[in-house]
């Protein structure tokens, strides 16, 4: 038992579980304060999400929808954790996601491109926007968090302006991608059959898993990953060892942005979501990516599970009793989880101390 607990990975897992449980508890307490009578049922519904449906077919269909939104979330959390490993906090991920959405939708709707070119265009758009943050950081020493936030807003307003050209005349939403240009819709590879013909489940699922594995391999098995991590640990030492730090910084955020851009294209090219050209806030996907990345212990494979969990409770928010509560309760839960994740280091230290203490006692005996 103790041997297992000494493993770093297990400690990270335990810490994440503690964060989740505390987050849910606080969410429950908030619901209790608002209205005690329906709180228990509502928090259970948040946790159950698609299981609240009684028919197994509907359950599968809803699970498919959650999966469709989990894929971009996984990519956003990969984007965050990749740059974080290199010592950069890429909060601009949200804007890079917006850039990807804008690029893929515009190419698909206005120019009638096929799905693969659209996707590549989205990746390039995300990478370019990330590259700006990287350039500013490397050559002008601009804090990447602040430039990232500024670029988020710039990306949002630019996308609103551009996508207005391809919107429906009667509504603020963009045209339906599946009706305007079916060629831009991602192929399903037969995966839709598994989820009660839910066409939102596409090639995105295998692509995302591949991306996670590739990021994991780059970070832990290649020379590039080693150099990037070294730059993150100590800029000057890395420079002294002959690594080109400016190039590494720019490349890191560009890769990070490419992941976010890909994520957006994987959601918007299913036709599941349309862009609202009058929206006044940056989509939450990029910010939720932060939650997922830290909850997953900053490990690419952990991110897969934590992303699914975050998306699961975010979707679960719609099943609360809306007579008293609002669906944003799941945003409260996930932001509390992010806050608690900042204590993970402390939780791990405490665990190590406790283990060391009990070892000492044994030694004394």
């Amino acid at each position, binding site marked *: 038992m103790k041997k297992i607990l000494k493993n770093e990975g297990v400690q990270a897992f335990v810490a994440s579980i503690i964060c989740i449980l505390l987050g849910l508890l606080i969410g429950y307490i908030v619901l209790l304060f608002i*209205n005690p009578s329906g709180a228990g049922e509502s928090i259970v519904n948040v946790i159950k999400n698609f299981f609240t449906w009684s028919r197994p077919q509907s359950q599968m269909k809803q699970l498919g929808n959650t999966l469709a939104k989990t894929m971009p979330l996984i990519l956003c959390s990969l984007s965050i954790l990749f740059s974080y490993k290199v010592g950069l906090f890429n909060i601009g991920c949200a804007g890079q996601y917006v850039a990807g959405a804008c690029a893929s939708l515009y190419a698909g709707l206005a120019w009638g491109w096929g799905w693969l070119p659209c996707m590549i265009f989205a990746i390039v758009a995300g990478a370019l926007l990330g590259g700006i943050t990287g350039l*500013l950081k490397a050559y*002008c020493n601009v804090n990447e968090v*602040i430039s990232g936030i500024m670029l988020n807003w710039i990306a949002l307003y630019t996308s609103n*302006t551009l996508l207005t050209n391809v919107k429906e005349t009667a509504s603020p939403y963009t045209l339906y991608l599946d009706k305007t240009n079916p060629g831009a819709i991602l192929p399903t590879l037969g995966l839709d059959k598994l989820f009660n013909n839910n066409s939102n489940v596409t090639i995105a699922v295998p692509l995302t898993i591949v991306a996670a594995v590739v990021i994991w391999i780059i970070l832990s098995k290649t020379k590039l990953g080693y150099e990037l991590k070294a730059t993150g640990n100590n800029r000057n030492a890395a420079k002294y060892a002959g690594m080109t730090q400016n190039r590494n910084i720019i490349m890191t955020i560009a890769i990070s942005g490419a992941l976010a851009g890909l994520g957006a294209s994987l959601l918007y090219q299913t036709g599941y979501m349309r862009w609202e050209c009058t929206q006044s806030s940056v989509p939450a996907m990029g910010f939720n990516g932060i939650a997922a990345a830290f909850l997953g212990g900053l490990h690419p494979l952990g991110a897969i599970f934590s992303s699914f969990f975050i998306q699961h409770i975010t979707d679960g928010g719609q099943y609360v009793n809306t007579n008293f509560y609002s669906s*944003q309760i799941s*945003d*409260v839960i996930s932001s509390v989880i992010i806050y608690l*994740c900042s204590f993970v280091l*402390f939780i791990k230290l405490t665990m190590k101390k406790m283990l060391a203490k009990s070892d000492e006692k044994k030694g004394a005996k």
Partner: protein
Amino acid sequence: MLLLTQYTLIFASVLLLVALGGCISEHSGVINLGLEGIMVVGALGGALVMRSLGTTSALVMVLVAMLAAALAGMLYSCLLGVAAIHFKADQTLVGTAMNLLATAAATVFVKAMNTAANPDNHSSEIEYIRARKMFIVNINGFEFNWFMLVAIIAVVLVYFLLYKNRLGLRLMACGEHPQAAASVGVSVYKMRWTGVLISGALGGLGGLCYILAGVSVWKFENGVAGFGFLALAVMIFGQWKPTRIAIAALIFGLFRALSNTYTGFPFLANLNLPGNVYNMMPYIVCLIVLAFTSKASHAPKAEGIPYDKGSR
């Protein structure tokens, strides 16, 4: 032109208050990226008072609402204090979490409150038409807002606190070299808490000022549109010095004001640019300014580094 001046001054007041908050917190050694969230909570505190205070005199209304906003901001900044000062948490992460939490929690809270009052009302809006009038003195068409005065007082106070006062010098020492400060008997924990709490109060005030700037109804789902981060940019542009921050706030305030008033200027309206261009303006200007001013950074040396008694 009058309108442009008015909007410039009110937005500059918002940025100034919040940037001064960030400045004090960073001088004590804690990066306060949660200012955006603190603004939302401060705005909520003020809005609740404005809504619940019935018929009172303008003076009472203004003072109580400001006090509530400052207290709400201080209370919320404790989340940062606990995590960053005592648990050595990553301050960027804590700040981000606070920003997300504030908007979500404020939305849930206001919606629950509205729904409890009227079962069909699921909006996240608080309305304060009458209260807003009490903040404003009309001088020949120019709407003077009491917050403009508060912002000026804040600059003076912060200036004296930081440079003409023992507390301020000790506080800044904790942001430059906390171990050195500790070696002469200054409590680093106490100083950092002072910095965080003052920044919470100023951030909360700034939040209330922001929602009073142009409208009489606030939808809490929208947060404060990156103003907390703009304020941090103002602080960097102002090189962490109160007087320079005041100038920087005016410049940024002007660009923000343009998006509200550009239709009133014939030569701007004739350019026929989409409104979104003006919406983007403050953020673009911010990036350009930062690109030119960040190289020679005067940031406090120990900011963002958790205090460790044992390290040298």
